[in-house]
């Protein structure tokens, strides 16, 4: 097979797989402008008549609470979680990457093992614990663990990244009389931008889309985030107003998709640092 036909095959295959990956998402987006009859049974991607009614009707949510509430709730949950995750991961990552202290090896091994600790195994006592703290039906089950660096994936990412920075930087700052915290904030942190962005973006996506934990920890409609609201709409509208469900499903992932396109390189970088170095 010559190079040309080989390349042609390659592209043909890539395009085919690309279609399988992206077509459903485009279909979802365009279906949200269709009438209910048109969503099922018809093959055309484009709606015969664009209508915004699914968005207007779907936005009303449960009647008592609109999707505006659910949107705000989601941000109330996601923003603090992301911020605290970044701060705590940087601090803990710095501790592991740059210092010697007793039991370091054991502690780091524990950190790595918790990467593999299934969430499903600890969720029940967590629920009871949060119940005692009075955190059920608040966003604390998400926010507080993020203050304490309970997302080992991100700490590990930070450790890996910091280890890649030359120790000479610390040394010269040390000679200049900086203390360890100043070294971190003034010298190292500016260089950590890629890692910090990666952490923020991943955590944003994961918290934004989290369903299992939200389902367990949040139970009043007033506090629903988008994933729970979608599930509610699905239960109440399925078989009736699919276009409204599609419209709200689209609304719910728009921030993620936008963020992905703007911050693409950090995704790839982040994933590559964590999985590979070392």
């Amino acid at each position: 097979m010559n190079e040309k036909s080989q390349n042609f095959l390659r592209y043909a295959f890539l395009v085919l797989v690309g279609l399988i990956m992206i077509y459903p998402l485009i279909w979802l987006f365009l279906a949200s402008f269709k009438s209910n009859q048109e969503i099922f049974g018809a093959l055309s991607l484009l709606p015969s008549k664009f209508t915004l009614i699914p968005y207007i009707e779907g936005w009303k949510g449960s009647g008592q609470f609109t999707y505006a509430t659910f949107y705000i709730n989601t941000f109330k949950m996601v923003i603090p979680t992301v911020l605290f995750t970044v701060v705590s991961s940087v601090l803990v990552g710095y501790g592991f990457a740059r210092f010697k202290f007793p039991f370091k090896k054991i502690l780091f091994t524990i950190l790595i093992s918790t990467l593999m600790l299934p969430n499903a195994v600890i969720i029940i006592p967590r629920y009871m614990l949060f119940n005692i703290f009075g955190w059920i039906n608040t966003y604390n089950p998400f926010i507080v663990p993020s203050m304490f660096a309970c997302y080992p994936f991100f700490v590990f990412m930070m450790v890996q990244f910091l280890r890649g920075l030359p120790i000479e930087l610390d040394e010269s700052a040390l000679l200049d009389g900086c203390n360890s915290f100043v070294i971190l904030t003034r010298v190292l942190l500016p260089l950590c931008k890629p890692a910090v962005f990666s952490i923020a973006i991943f955590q944003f996506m994961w918290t934004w889309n989290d369903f299992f934990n939200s389902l367990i920890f949040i139970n009043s409609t007033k506090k629903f985030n988008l994933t729970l609201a979608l599930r509610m709409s699905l239960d109440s509208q399925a078989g009736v107003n699919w276009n409204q469900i599609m419209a709200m499903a689209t609304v719910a992932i728009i921030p993620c998709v936008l963020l992905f396109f703007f911050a693409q390189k950090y995704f790839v970088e982040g994933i590559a640092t964590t999985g590979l170095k070392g």
Partner: protein
Amino acid sequence: MKFRDNLNCGLNPSPSKKVVKRKFKNYTGLIYILPWIIGFVVFQLYPFIATLFYSFTNYSLGRVPKFIGLKNYIDMFTNDPYFFQAVKVTTIYVMMVVPLKLIFALFIAIILNVKIKFVNFFRTIYYIPSILAGSVTISILWRALFVNDGLVNNLLSFFHIGQIQWLGSSLMALFTISMLGVWQFGSSMVLFLAGLKQIPKELYEAGKVDGASKIRMFRIITIPLLTPIIFFNLIMQMINAFQEFTSAFVVTNGGPMRGTYLFGMKLYEEAFKNFKMGYASSLSWMLFLAIMVFTLLIFKSSSSWVHYEDGGEF
């Protein structure tokens, strides 16, 4: 454990590197990691031990737990009509999703690992579904695609291939859910791609000089050098697959006839619908043991198939 050593390497710089004498006191580092130590103890270690404890009790929310020995574990095997169903469904799901996802991710990564135009574009497109992993939107989409008069069946009838009841029978529904998992192969693919980029070009050139065919080079260069990443992906994807919940819950709600009644759903129902916390704890420990057994098996086998350039010793 090589996996751990692999991740651990470089943390303690080797003697050949300049070891820097730090002026800071021994405990400065501990102060920085203190938040994590607290978080680990309160939000991970305690719950982990507590589930084990609760699994020997008949605890339910608002009641004082009473020790009942192994009763939960015995009940599971003798007195629970759906336990084995959940185990069966989950096993099939894991066996289907994990290999398919990894093979697909590797295959695509290899195709993408050449200097051709639009590589980045394709990579982006393939990556999108996996960043939305676990989102309810995707599950809703899947349901809409695979219902009887959904897009997939419309396409099939357009090409005159008869319609398929994707969500109609137990096995088909499980297959459809698994496809959702495989569809999200993007993050594994990115890892493979990064790994492929790290393989030194000289190896292939040397192979070429020796007259090795492309297939042979793939077998003796590419695959061995990728095994650490295959290993990492395998473990992580397996752990995730065992806990899958959202797709089964939203797309099929465990049905039809509990055909997609994944272990995650079973756990959720016992703990947060029936509030049988004690029993659910024993279930979650079974899940943990299953994951542990598989992880250990993979670790054990790794010495025979995972290749580290430096022999795996650090």
